[in-house]
Protein backbone atom coordinates (compact mmCIF):
# COMPACT_ATOMS: atom_id res chain seq x y z
CA UNK A 1 0.00 0.00 0.00
CA UNK A 2 1.78 3.06 -1.17
CA UNK A 3 0.37 6.43 -0.51
CA UNK A 4 0.62 8.62 -3.51
CA UNK A 5 1.87 11.98 -2.57
CA UNK A 6 0.11 13.72 -5.38
CA UNK A 7 -3.40 12.70 -4.54
CA UNK A 8 -4.80 16.16 -4.84
CA UNK A 9 -2.63 17.72 -2.20
CA UNK A 10 0.13 20.12 -2.83
CA UNK A 11 2.84 18.05 -1.30
CA UNK A 12 3.77 16.12 1.74
CA UNK A 13 6.73 17.86 3.15
CA UNK A 14 8.03 21.35 3.08
CA UNK A 15 9.23 20.98 -0.46
CA UNK A 16 6.88 21.35 -3.37
CA UNK A 17 6.17 18.49 -5.65
CA UNK A 18 7.53 18.66 -9.10
CA UNK A 19 4.54 18.68 -11.43
CA UNK A 20 4.27 15.63 -13.56
CA UNK A 21 6.50 13.52 -11.41
CA UNK A 22 4.74 10.96 -9.34
CA UNK A 23 6.27 10.73 -5.92
CA UNK A 24 5.49 8.42 -3.08
CA UNK A 25 6.19 8.25 0.56
CA UNK A 26 8.79 5.69 1.39
CA UNK A 27 7.28 2.78 3.18
CA UNK A 28 9.57 1.39 5.81
CA UNK A 29 9.14 -1.65 7.95
CA UNK A 30 10.80 -0.96 11.25
CA UNK A 31 10.81 -4.32 12.89
CA UNK A 32 9.78 -6.89 13.96
CA UNK A 33 13.50 -7.56 13.85
CA UNK A 34 14.97 -4.19 14.46
CA UNK A 35 17.46 -3.15 17.12
CA UNK A 36 15.38 -0.29 18.44
CA UNK A 37 11.95 -1.77 18.73
CA UNK A 38 12.46 -3.40 22.12
CA UNK A 39 11.33 -6.83 21.22
CA UNK A 40 9.18 -7.79 18.31
CA UNK A 41 7.29 -4.63 17.70
CA UNK A 42 6.77 -3.76 14.09
CA UNK A 43 6.30 -0.16 13.09
CA UNK A 44 5.09 0.52 9.61
CA UNK A 45 6.45 3.93 8.73
CA UNK A 46 5.64 6.21 5.87
CA UNK A 47 8.50 8.58 5.52
CA UNK A 48 9.61 11.39 3.33
CA UNK A 49 13.35 11.33 3.72
CA UNK A 50 14.00 11.49 7.42
CA UNK A 51 10.56 12.79 8.32
CA UNK A 52 7.92 10.31 9.40
CA UNK A 53 4.42 10.96 8.14
CA UNK A 54 2.60 7.98 9.51
CA UNK A 55 3.34 5.39 12.13
CA UNK A 56 1.32 2.22 12.32
CA UNK A 57 2.33 -0.18 15.07
CA UNK A 58 1.68 -3.78 14.15
CA UNK A 59 1.39 -6.05 17.14
CA UNK A 60 0.98 -9.70 17.83
CA UNK A 61 4.37 -11.20 17.22
CA UNK A 62 4.57 -12.38 20.82
CA UNK A 63 0.94 -13.26 21.25
CA UNK A 64 0.37 -16.31 23.43
CA UNK A 65 -3.27 -15.75 24.30
CA UNK A 66 -2.54 -15.74 27.98
CA UNK A 67 -6.12 -14.75 28.69
CA UNK A 68 -7.33 -17.98 27.15
CA UNK A 69 -4.81 -19.93 29.17
CA UNK A 70 -6.12 -18.18 32.27
CA UNK A 71 -9.51 -19.72 31.67
CA UNK A 72 -7.92 -23.15 31.64
CA UNK A 73 -5.65 -23.05 34.67
CA UNK A 74 -6.51 -22.25 38.23
CA UNK A 75 -5.82 -19.02 40.03
CA UNK A 76 -2.51 -20.07 41.48
CA UNK A 77 -1.17 -21.64 38.36
CA UNK A 78 -1.73 -18.48 36.44
CA UNK A 79 0.67 -16.52 38.63
CA UNK A 80 3.32 -18.23 36.56
CA UNK A 81 1.92 -16.67 33.43
CA UNK A 82 1.79 -13.19 34.87
CA UNK A 83 5.56 -13.39 35.15
CA UNK A 84 5.65 -13.56 31.39
CA UNK A 85 3.82 -10.29 30.84
CA UNK A 86 6.38 -7.77 31.79
CA UNK A 87 9.38 -10.01 31.91
CA UNK A 88 11.54 -7.12 33.01
CA UNK A 89 9.59 -6.51 36.18
CA UNK A 90 7.70 -9.73 36.84
CA UNK A 91 7.28 -9.07 40.54
CA UNK A 92 5.11 -6.06 39.88
CA UNK A 93 2.98 -8.12 37.51
CA UNK A 94 2.67 -10.84 40.11
CA UNK A 95 1.62 -8.20 42.56
CA UNK A 96 -1.14 -6.94 40.32
CA UNK A 97 -2.57 -10.36 39.79
CA UNK A 98 -2.51 -11.53 43.39
CA UNK A 99 -3.99 -8.21 44.48
CA UNK A 100 -6.80 -8.73 42.01
CA UNK A 101 -7.48 -12.26 43.20
CA UNK A 102 -7.35 -11.21 46.84
CA UNK A 103 -9.69 -8.31 46.26
CA UNK A 104 -12.22 -10.53 44.57
CA UNK A 105 -11.76 -13.47 46.89
CA UNK A 106 -11.67 -11.42 50.07
CA UNK A 107 -8.36 -12.96 51.08
CA UNK A 108 -6.48 -11.38 53.92
CA UNK A 109 -2.78 -10.88 53.49
CA UNK A 110 -0.41 -10.77 56.47
CA UNK A 111 1.56 -7.58 56.92
CA UNK A 112 4.87 -9.39 56.59
CA UNK A 113 3.85 -10.71 53.21
CA UNK A 114 2.87 -7.23 52.07
CA UNK A 115 6.20 -5.85 53.16
CA UNK A 116 8.05 -8.57 51.32
CA UNK A 117 5.87 -7.99 48.28
CA UNK A 118 6.57 -4.30 48.27
CA UNK A 119 10.29 -4.81 48.74
CA UNK A 120 10.55 -7.33 45.92
CA UNK A 121 8.20 -5.43 43.64
CA UNK A 122 10.18 -2.25 44.10
CA UNK A 123 13.42 -4.09 43.48
CA UNK A 124 11.87 -5.37 40.31
CA UNK A 125 10.78 -1.88 39.41
CA UNK A 126 14.32 -0.63 39.87
CA UNK A 127 15.53 -3.42 37.62
CA UNK A 128 12.98 -2.54 34.98
CA UNK A 129 13.79 1.15 35.12
CA UNK A 130 17.44 0.31 34.79
CA UNK A 131 16.64 -1.57 31.61
CA UNK A 132 14.59 1.38 30.46
CA UNK A 133 17.53 3.70 31.05
CA UNK A 134 19.92 1.28 29.46
CA UNK A 135 17.95 0.62 26.32
CA UNK A 136 16.99 4.24 25.97
CA UNK A 137 20.65 5.12 26.09
CA UNK A 138 21.34 2.40 23.57
CA UNK A 139 18.73 3.82 21.25
CA UNK A 140 20.67 7.05 21.48
CA UNK A 141 23.85 5.16 20.64
CA UNK A 142 25.34 5.19 24.11
CA UNK A 143 26.58 1.69 24.66
CA UNK A 144 28.33 1.98 27.94
CA UNK A 145 25.40 2.98 30.17
CA UNK A 146 23.70 -0.16 28.92
CA UNK A 147 26.39 -2.33 30.37
CA UNK A 148 26.53 -0.40 33.62
CA UNK A 149 22.79 -0.64 34.07
CA UNK A 150 22.86 -4.33 33.33
CA UNK A 151 25.57 -4.74 35.92
CA UNK A 152 23.32 -3.24 38.57
CA UNK A 153 20.34 -5.15 37.32
CA UNK A 154 22.35 -8.30 37.70
CA UNK A 155 22.76 -7.50 41.38
CA UNK A 156 19.01 -7.15 41.69
CA UNK A 157 18.44 -10.42 39.89
CA UNK A 158 20.84 -12.11 42.27
CA UNK A 159 18.96 -10.69 45.24
CA UNK A 160 15.60 -11.71 43.87
CA UNK A 161 16.97 -15.09 42.96
CA UNK A 162 17.99 -15.61 46.55
CA UNK A 163 14.52 -14.91 47.88
CA UNK A 164 12.39 -16.43 45.15
CA UNK A 165 14.54 -19.02 43.43
CA UNK A 166 13.90 -17.63 39.98
CA UNK A 167 16.26 -15.43 38.14
CA UNK A 168 13.95 -13.64 35.76
CA UNK A 169 10.57 -15.26 36.24
CA UNK A 170 9.97 -15.45 39.92
CA UNK A 171 6.55 -16.92 40.59
CA UNK A 172 7.06 -15.52 44.05
CA UNK A 173 3.72 -14.18 45.11
CA UNK A 174 0.64 -16.28 45.64
CA UNK A 175 -2.86 -15.18 46.52
CA UNK A 176 -2.74 -14.80 50.27
CA UNK A 177 0.90 -14.06 50.73
CA UNK A 178 4.26 -14.86 49.33
CA UNK A 179 5.67 -18.23 48.53
CA UNK A 180 8.75 -18.13 50.68
CA UNK A 181 9.86 -16.21 53.70
CA UNK A 182 13.23 -14.49 53.85
CA UNK A 183 16.14 -16.70 52.94
CA UNK A 184 18.38 -17.94 55.72
CA UNK A 185 21.28 -15.68 54.85
CA UNK A 186 21.37 -11.96 55.53
CA UNK A 187 19.27 -10.98 52.56
CA UNK A 188 17.85 -7.85 54.13
CA UNK A 189 21.28 -6.44 54.88
CA UNK A 190 22.43 -7.14 51.33
CA UNK A 191 19.40 -5.42 49.86
CA UNK A 192 19.91 -2.38 52.03
CA UNK A 193 23.54 -2.26 51.07
CA UNK A 194 22.64 -2.46 47.41
CA UNK A 195 20.03 0.25 47.76
CA UNK A 196 22.51 2.56 49.43
CA UNK A 197 25.11 1.91 46.77
CA UNK A 198 22.52 2.55 44.09
CA UNK A 199 21.53 5.90 45.54
CA UNK A 200 24.94 7.11 46.51
CA UNK A 201 27.19 5.92 43.73
CA UNK A 202 25.44 4.47 40.75
CA UNK A 203 22.73 7.00 40.03
CA UNK A 204 25.13 9.96 40.07
CA UNK A 205 27.28 8.00 37.64
CA UNK A 206 24.39 7.48 35.26
CA UNK A 207 23.42 11.09 35.55
CA UNK A 208 26.87 12.26 34.63
CA UNK A 209 27.31 9.73 31.90
CA UNK A 210 23.92 10.00 30.26
CA UNK A 211 21.27 12.19 31.83
CA UNK A 212 23.09 15.50 31.75
CA UNK A 213 25.17 14.78 28.72
CA UNK A 214 24.63 17.55 26.25
CA UNK A 215 24.24 15.27 23.27
CA UNK A 216 21.70 13.20 25.12
CA UNK A 217 19.75 16.27 26.14
CA UNK A 218 19.79 17.54 22.58
CA UNK A 219 18.51 14.23 21.33
CA UNK A 220 15.69 13.87 23.83
CA UNK A 221 14.43 17.29 24.84
CA UNK A 222 11.54 18.70 22.83
CA UNK A 223 11.16 15.36 21.10
CA UNK A 224 8.01 13.26 21.13
CA UNK A 225 6.00 15.58 23.32
CA UNK A 226 2.95 14.03 24.93
CA UNK A 227 0.72 16.71 26.30
CA UNK A 228 -1.30 16.26 29.45
CA UNK A 229 -4.51 16.02 27.45
CA UNK A 230 -3.08 13.42 25.09
CA UNK A 231 -1.81 11.40 28.00
CA UNK A 232 -5.26 11.22 29.54
CA UNK A 233 -7.06 10.64 26.29
CA UNK A 234 -4.79 7.81 25.24
CA UNK A 235 -4.86 6.24 28.68
CA UNK A 236 -1.16 6.65 29.27
CA UNK A 237 -0.08 5.63 32.70
CA UNK A 238 3.05 5.23 34.71
CA UNK A 239 6.18 7.19 33.90
CA UNK A 240 4.70 8.27 30.57
CA UNK A 241 1.81 10.00 32.32
CA UNK A 242 4.04 11.45 35.00
CA UNK A 243 6.46 12.60 32.36
CA UNK A 244 3.65 14.72 31.00
CA UNK A 245 3.50 16.55 34.27
CA UNK A 246 0.62 14.72 35.91
CA UNK A 247 1.29 13.99 39.53
CA UNK A 248 -0.47 10.69 39.57
CA UNK A 249 0.69 7.41 40.93
CA UNK A 250 -1.55 4.48 41.57
CA UNK A 251 0.49 3.56 44.59
CA UNK A 252 -0.42 6.78 46.33
CA UNK A 253 -3.64 7.92 44.73
CA UNK A 254 -5.48 4.63 44.41
CA UNK A 255 -3.67 2.75 47.12
CA UNK A 256 -3.33 -0.96 47.28
CA UNK A 257 -1.17 -3.23 49.36
CA UNK A 258 0.50 -1.19 52.13
CA UNK A 259 1.84 1.61 49.99
CA UNK A 260 -0.20 4.18 51.88
CA UNK A 261 1.90 3.46 54.98
CA UNK A 262 5.16 4.41 53.35
CA UNK A 263 6.62 7.73 52.59
CA UNK A 264 7.64 8.43 49.02
CA UNK A 265 7.36 11.13 46.47
CA UNK A 266 6.02 11.14 42.96
CA UNK A 267 8.47 12.60 40.48
CA UNK A 268 6.90 14.37 37.54
CA UNK A 269 8.28 15.79 34.35
CA UNK A 270 8.79 19.50 34.70
CA UNK A 271 10.21 20.36 31.33
CA UNK A 272 13.61 21.12 32.76
CA UNK A 273 15.40 20.68 29.46
CA UNK A 274 12.61 21.51 27.07
CA UNK A 275 8.88 21.07 26.98
CA UNK A 276 6.89 19.19 29.57
CA UNK A 277 6.20 15.70 28.30
CA UNK A 278 9.20 15.25 26.08
CA UNK A 279 11.42 12.20 26.02
CA UNK A 280 13.85 13.65 28.52
CA UNK A 281 11.06 14.19 31.03
CA UNK A 282 9.91 10.62 30.74
CA UNK A 283 13.47 9.51 31.16
CA UNK A 284 14.18 11.64 34.21
CA UNK A 285 10.96 10.46 35.84
CA UNK A 286 12.34 6.95 35.68
CA UNK A 287 15.66 7.98 37.13
CA UNK A 288 13.94 9.71 40.01
CA UNK A 289 11.58 6.82 40.51
CA UNK A 290 14.57 4.61 41.08
CA UNK A 291 15.46 6.83 44.01
CA UNK A 292 11.94 6.67 45.36
CA UNK A 293 11.83 2.91 44.93
CA UNK A 294 15.05 2.69 46.89
CA UNK A 295 13.39 4.65 49.66
CA UNK A 296 10.41 2.33 49.59
CA UNK A 297 12.60 -0.75 49.73
CA UNK A 298 14.45 0.62 52.70
CA UNK A 299 11.27 1.44 54.56
CA UNK A 300 9.60 -1.86 53.74
CA UNK A 301 12.53 -3.90 54.93
CA UNK A 302 13.45 -1.83 57.96
CA UNK A 303 9.89 -2.00 59.22
CA UNK A 304 9.47 -5.66 58.30
CA UNK A 305 7.09 -7.09 60.89
CA UNK A 306 7.26 -10.58 62.32
CA UNK A 307 4.47 -13.00 61.71
CA UNK A 308 3.15 -15.33 59.08
CA UNK A 309 3.84 -14.72 55.45
CA UNK A 310 0.91 -16.63 54.07
CA UNK A 311 -2.69 -16.56 55.07
CA UNK A 312 -3.94 -19.60 53.24
CA UNK A 313 -2.60 -23.09 52.88
CA UNK A 314 -0.51 -23.25 49.75
CA UNK A 315 -1.54 -26.74 48.78
CA UNK A 316 -5.20 -25.90 48.63
CA UNK A 317 -6.54 -24.33 45.48
CA UNK A 318 -7.88 -20.83 45.75
CA UNK A 319 -11.61 -20.48 45.34
CA UNK A 320 -12.95 -17.11 44.48
CA UNK A 321 -16.63 -16.33 45.00
CA UNK A 322 -18.61 -15.30 41.98
CA UNK A 323 -18.23 -11.71 41.00
CA UNK A 324 -16.22 -9.41 38.84
CA UNK A 325 -13.74 -6.74 39.70
CA UNK A 326 -11.18 -4.61 37.98
CA UNK A 327 -7.97 -4.10 39.87
CA UNK A 328 -5.09 -1.98 38.78
CA UNK A 329 -1.70 -1.48 40.27
CA UNK A 330 1.33 0.48 39.34
CA UNK A 331 3.85 -1.71 37.59
CA UNK A 332 7.11 -0.46 36.27
CA UNK A 333 5.60 0.41 32.92
CA UNK A 334 2.31 1.84 34.05
CA UNK A 335 -0.98 0.69 35.44
CA UNK A 336 -1.49 -2.96 34.82
CA UNK A 337 -5.07 -4.00 35.34
CA UNK A 338 -6.83 -7.31 35.72
CA UNK A 339 -10.52 -7.63 35.12
CA UNK A 340 -11.41 -10.96 36.61
CA UNK A 341 -14.85 -12.44 36.19
CA UNK A 342 -15.13 -15.27 38.68
CA UNK A 343 -17.82 -17.90 38.73
CA UNK A 344 -17.09 -19.35 42.16
CA UNK A 345 -14.77 -22.06 40.94
CA UNK A 346 -11.06 -22.60 40.90
CA UNK A 347 -10.56 -21.01 37.55
CA UNK A 348 -11.51 -17.54 36.42
CA UNK A 349 -14.34 -17.34 33.94
CA UNK A 350 -12.66 -14.50 32.16
CA UNK A 351 -9.47 -12.67 32.93
CA UNK A 352 -8.92 -9.59 30.89
CA UNK A 353 -5.58 -7.90 31.25
CA UNK A 354 -5.35 -4.19 30.75
CA UNK A 355 -1.91 -3.77 29.34
CA UNK A 356 -0.24 -0.51 30.25
CA UNK A 357 2.40 -0.76 27.56
CA UNK A 358 -0.29 -1.14 24.93
CA UNK A 359 -1.99 2.09 25.94
CA UNK A 360 1.35 3.84 26.19
CA UNK A 361 2.31 2.65 22.74
CA UNK A 362 -0.97 3.74 21.24
CA UNK A 363 -0.07 7.38 21.68
CA UNK A 364 2.79 6.84 19.24
CA UNK A 365 0.30 6.91 16.38
CA UNK A 366 -0.35 10.51 17.29
CA UNK A 367 2.99 11.86 18.46
CA UNK A 368 5.05 9.94 15.94
CA UNK A 369 3.82 12.04 13.05
CA UNK A 370 6.32 14.63 11.95
CA UNK A 371 9.24 13.22 13.88
CA UNK A 372 12.49 12.22 12.29
CA UNK A 373 13.35 8.56 12.12
CA UNK A 374 15.96 9.06 14.83
CA UNK A 375 13.43 10.84 17.01
CA UNK A 376 10.96 8.06 16.52
CA UNK A 377 13.53 5.65 17.87
CA UNK A 378 14.01 7.94 20.85
CA UNK A 379 10.28 8.21 21.41
CA UNK A 380 9.71 4.48 21.29
CA UNK A 381 12.58 4.06 23.72
CA UNK A 382 11.18 6.64 26.09
CA UNK A 383 7.77 4.98 26.14
CA UNK A 384 9.53 1.92 27.54
CA UNK A 385 7.22 -0.72 26.22
CA UNK A 386 7.61 -4.41 26.74
CA UNK A 387 6.11 -6.61 24.10
CA UNK A 388 5.42 -9.53 26.39
CA UNK A 389 2.79 -7.41 28.01
CA UNK A 390 1.35 -5.79 24.92
CA UNK A 391 0.83 -9.02 23.06
CA UNK A 392 0.24 -11.19 26.13
Amino acid at each position, binding site marked *: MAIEATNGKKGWGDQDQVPGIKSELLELNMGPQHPATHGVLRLLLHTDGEIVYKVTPVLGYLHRCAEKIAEGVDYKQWVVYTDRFDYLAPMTCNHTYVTAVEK*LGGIEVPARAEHLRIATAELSRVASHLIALATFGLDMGAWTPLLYCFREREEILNLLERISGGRMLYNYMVPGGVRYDLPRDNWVADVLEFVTMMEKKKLPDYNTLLTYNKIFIERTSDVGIITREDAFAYGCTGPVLRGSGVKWDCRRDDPYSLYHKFDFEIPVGMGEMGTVGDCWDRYIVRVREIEQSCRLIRQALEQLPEGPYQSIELKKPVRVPAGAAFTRTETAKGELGHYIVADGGQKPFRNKVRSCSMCNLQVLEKIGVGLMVSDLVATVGSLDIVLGEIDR
Partner: protein
Amino acid sequence: MDHKAIFDLLAERIGAGAIAFHEDPIEPWAEIAVGRIAEACLFLRDDPRLAFDQLMCLSGLDWDGYDENGKGKSVAILGYQDDGTPEPGDRTATGDLGVAYHLYSHSLRHKFTLRVRMPRDRNVVPTVSGVWPTASWHEREAWDLVGIRFGGHPDLRRMLLEEDWVGHPLRKDYVMPGSWSGVPLQGQPFSENPFAPAAPAPAGGDTPAEG
Protein backbone atom coordinates in the same frame (compact mmCIF):
# COMPACT_ATOMS: atom_id res chain seq x y z
CA MET B 1 -18.99 10.62 44.00
CA ASP B 2 -20.98 7.65 45.10
CA HIS B 3 -21.65 5.02 42.47
CA LYS B 4 -25.37 5.19 42.92
CA ALA B 5 -25.37 8.95 42.49
CA ILE B 6 -23.37 8.59 39.29
CA PHE B 7 -25.88 6.11 38.02
CA ASP B 8 -28.76 8.40 38.88
CA LEU B 9 -27.19 11.22 36.94
CA LEU B 10 -26.66 8.89 34.03
CA ALA B 11 -30.21 7.59 34.18
CA GLU B 12 -31.48 11.14 34.24
CA ARG B 13 -29.62 11.77 31.00
CA ILE B 14 -30.21 8.67 28.93
CA GLY B 15 -33.43 7.52 30.54
CA ALA B 16 -34.31 3.96 29.71
CA GLY B 17 -30.87 3.42 28.25
CA ALA B 18 -29.57 2.93 31.78
CA ILE B 19 -31.08 -0.43 32.43
CA ALA B 20 -30.10 -1.33 35.95
CA PHE B 21 -27.65 -0.63 38.71
CA HIS B 22 -26.06 -3.54 40.51
CA GLU B 23 -24.89 -2.78 44.02
CA ASP B 24 -22.04 -5.25 44.03
CA PRO B 25 -20.00 -4.92 47.24
CA ILE B 26 -16.66 -5.17 45.42
CA GLU B 27 -17.42 -3.37 42.25
CA PRO B 28 -20.82 -1.82 41.59
CA TRP B 29 -21.77 -1.65 37.98
CA ALA B 30 -24.44 -0.29 35.75
CA GLU B 31 -26.00 -2.05 32.84
CA ILE B 32 -26.50 0.13 29.83
CA ALA B 33 -28.48 -0.54 26.69
CA VAL B 34 -26.20 -1.46 23.84
CA GLY B 35 -27.29 1.32 21.57
CA ARG B 36 -26.82 4.08 24.14
CA ILE B 37 -23.34 3.30 25.36
CA ALA B 38 -21.48 5.85 23.28
CA GLU B 39 -23.92 8.53 24.35
CA ALA B 40 -23.57 7.50 27.98
CA CYS B 41 -19.80 7.57 27.78
CA LEU B 42 -19.77 10.99 26.17
CA PHE B 43 -21.98 12.28 28.94
CA LEU B 44 -19.82 10.70 31.62
CA ARG B 45 -16.73 12.28 30.14
CA ASP B 46 -18.09 15.73 29.51
CA ASP B 47 -20.30 16.38 32.50
CA PRO B 48 -18.23 18.43 34.95
CA ARG B 49 -19.80 16.62 37.90
CA LEU B 50 -18.49 13.32 36.56
CA ALA B 51 -15.47 14.13 34.39
CA PHE B 52 -14.40 10.60 33.63
CA ASP B 53 -11.25 11.43 31.73
CA GLN B 54 -9.71 7.98 31.68
CA LEU B 55 -10.97 4.74 30.26
CA MET B 56 -9.06 2.31 32.42
CA CYS B 57 -10.12 -0.80 30.67
CA LEU B 58 -12.45 -2.07 28.02
CA SER B 59 -13.08 -5.79 28.18
CA GLY B 60 -14.90 -7.98 25.77
CA LEU B 61 -16.72 -10.82 27.47
CA ASP B 62 -18.35 -14.01 26.33
CA TRP B 63 -21.00 -14.99 28.85
CA ASP B 64 -21.76 -18.33 27.25
CA GLY B 65 -22.09 -21.05 29.85
CA TYR B 66 -21.50 -18.74 32.80
CA ASP B 67 -22.57 -20.35 36.05
CA GLU B 68 -25.11 -17.91 37.44
CA ASN B 69 -25.27 -19.74 40.77
CA GLY B 70 -21.68 -19.05 41.64
CA LYS B 71 -20.81 -22.70 42.10
CA GLY B 72 -17.98 -22.74 39.63
CA LYS B 73 -19.85 -24.95 37.20
CA SER B 74 -19.29 -22.86 34.12
CA VAL B 75 -18.81 -24.60 30.84
CA ALA B 76 -15.18 -25.51 30.51
CA ILE B 77 -13.27 -24.13 27.61
CA LEU B 78 -12.30 -26.52 24.89
CA GLY B 79 -8.90 -27.99 25.46
CA TYR B 80 -6.86 -30.66 23.82
CA GLN B 81 -7.41 -34.34 23.52
CA ASP B 82 -4.81 -36.83 24.59
CA ASP B 83 -3.47 -37.17 21.08
CA GLY B 84 -2.79 -33.49 20.93
CA THR B 85 -5.55 -32.47 18.58
CA PRO B 86 -8.03 -29.88 19.79
CA GLU B 87 -11.24 -31.16 21.24
CA PRO B 88 -13.97 -31.31 18.63
CA GLY B 89 -16.08 -28.22 18.90
CA ASP B 90 -19.56 -29.44 18.18
CA ARG B 91 -20.88 -27.45 21.12
CA THR B 92 -22.89 -24.52 19.98
CA ALA B 93 -22.66 -21.47 22.14
CA THR B 94 -25.79 -19.52 22.76
CA GLY B 95 -24.85 -17.16 25.55
CA ASP B 96 -24.59 -13.45 25.32
CA LEU B 97 -21.58 -11.34 24.59
CA GLY B 98 -20.76 -8.31 26.63
CA VAL B 99 -18.44 -5.40 27.03
CA ALA B 100 -17.32 -3.89 30.31
CA TYR B 101 -16.06 -0.32 30.56
CA HIS B 102 -14.06 0.78 33.57
CA LEU B 103 -13.89 4.52 33.91
CA TYR B 104 -11.90 6.72 36.17
CA SER B 105 -11.80 10.41 36.83
CA HIS B 106 -8.43 11.83 37.65
CA SER B 107 -9.81 15.12 38.82
CA LEU B 108 -12.64 13.82 40.97
CA ARG B 109 -11.08 10.47 41.84
CA HIS B 110 -14.04 8.22 41.36
CA LYS B 111 -14.55 5.05 39.39
CA PHE B 112 -17.48 3.65 37.57
CA THR B 113 -18.18 0.48 35.68
CA LEU B 114 -20.51 0.13 32.75
CA ARG B 115 -21.50 -3.09 31.13
CA VAL B 116 -23.41 -3.84 28.02
CA ARG B 117 -24.72 -7.20 27.04
CA MET B 118 -26.06 -8.26 23.72
CA PRO B 119 -27.15 -11.46 22.03
CA ARG B 120 -24.53 -13.43 20.24
CA ASP B 121 -25.92 -12.87 16.79
CA ARG B 122 -26.22 -9.11 17.15
CA ASN B 123 -22.74 -8.39 18.35
CA VAL B 124 -22.45 -4.76 17.38
CA VAL B 125 -21.68 -2.08 19.93
CA PRO B 126 -21.24 1.61 19.17
CA THR B 127 -17.64 2.57 19.43
CA VAL B 128 -16.38 4.84 22.19
CA SER B 129 -13.10 5.50 20.44
CA GLY B 130 -14.40 8.97 19.68
CA VAL B 131 -14.80 9.59 23.38
CA TRP B 132 -11.48 8.25 24.54
CA PRO B 133 -8.92 7.56 21.80
CA THR B 134 -7.45 4.80 23.92
CA ALA B 135 -10.60 2.78 23.35
CA SER B 136 -9.56 2.33 19.75
CA TRP B 137 -7.01 -0.36 20.44
CA HIS B 138 -9.00 -1.92 23.24
CA GLU B 139 -11.89 -2.29 20.84
CA ARG B 140 -9.66 -3.75 18.19
CA GLU B 141 -8.47 -6.25 20.74
CA ALA B 142 -12.03 -7.09 21.77
CA TRP B 143 -12.95 -7.61 18.12
CA ASP B 144 -9.88 -9.72 17.57
CA LEU B 145 -10.18 -11.99 20.57
CA VAL B 146 -13.85 -11.98 21.47
CA GLY B 147 -15.45 -11.08 18.17
CA ILE B 148 -17.44 -8.02 19.15
CA ARG B 149 -17.98 -5.54 16.38
CA PHE B 150 -17.76 -1.89 17.19
CA GLY B 151 -19.95 0.18 14.94
CA GLY B 152 -18.31 3.33 13.72
CA HIS B 153 -14.82 2.28 14.68
CA PRO B 154 -12.38 3.95 12.28
CA ASP B 155 -10.01 1.04 11.90
CA LEU B 156 -11.48 -2.22 13.14
CA ARG B 157 -8.80 -4.68 12.14
CA ARG B 158 -7.45 -7.61 14.00
CA MET B 159 -4.72 -6.52 16.31
CA LEU B 160 -2.96 -9.46 17.92
CA LEU B 161 -3.80 -12.23 15.49
CA GLU B 162 -3.18 -12.44 11.82
CA GLU B 163 -5.61 -10.66 9.55
CA ASP B 164 -6.82 -13.88 8.01
CA TRP B 165 -7.19 -15.82 11.23
CA VAL B 166 -10.42 -17.75 11.57
CA GLY B 167 -12.44 -17.40 14.75
CA HIS B 168 -12.11 -15.41 17.92
CA PRO B 169 -10.08 -17.26 20.53
CA LEU B 170 -11.66 -15.92 23.68
CA ARG B 171 -15.08 -17.13 22.71
CA LYS B 172 -16.09 -20.09 24.77
CA ASP B 173 -16.86 -22.24 21.75
CA TYR B 174 -13.65 -21.44 19.95
CA VAL B 175 -11.94 -24.34 18.30
CA MET B 176 -8.33 -24.04 17.40
CA PRO B 177 -8.05 -24.43 13.64
CA GLY B 178 -6.01 -27.32 12.37
CA SER B 179 -3.78 -25.11 10.35
CA TRP B 180 -3.32 -21.52 9.36
CA SER B 181 -1.95 -20.59 5.94
CA GLY B 182 -0.51 -24.05 5.64
CA VAL B 183 1.17 -23.99 9.03
CA PRO B 184 0.00 -26.89 11.16
CA LEU B 185 -1.18 -25.72 14.55
CA GLN B 186 -1.85 -28.99 16.33
CA GLY B 187 -0.29 -29.55 19.68
CA GLN B 188 1.86 -32.49 20.46
CA PRO B 189 0.47 -35.69 21.90
CA PHE B 190 0.72 -35.18 25.61
CA SER B 191 0.49 -38.73 26.81
CA GLU B 192 3.52 -40.12 25.08
CA ASN B 193 6.94 -38.99 24.26
CA PRO B 194 6.48 -36.53 21.44
CA PHE B 195 9.88 -37.28 20.05
CA ALA B 196 10.05 -40.92 19.18
CA PRO B 197 12.31 -42.80 19.62
CA ALA B 198 12.93 -42.28 23.28
CA ALA B 199 16.00 -40.23 23.87
CA PRO B 200 19.01 -41.83 25.43
CA ALA B 201 20.05 -40.27 28.69
CA PRO B 202 23.08 -38.11 28.08
CA ALA B 203 26.26 -39.30 29.63
CA GLY B 204 28.00 -37.48 32.40
CA GLY B 205 26.97 -36.53 35.87
CA ASP B 206 25.96 -33.02 34.96
CA THR B 207 22.37 -33.97 34.39
CA PRO B 208 19.69 -35.25 36.67
CA ALA B 209 20.54 -38.89 37.15
CA GLU B 210 18.30 -41.72 36.17
CA GLY B 211 16.15 -42.88 39.06
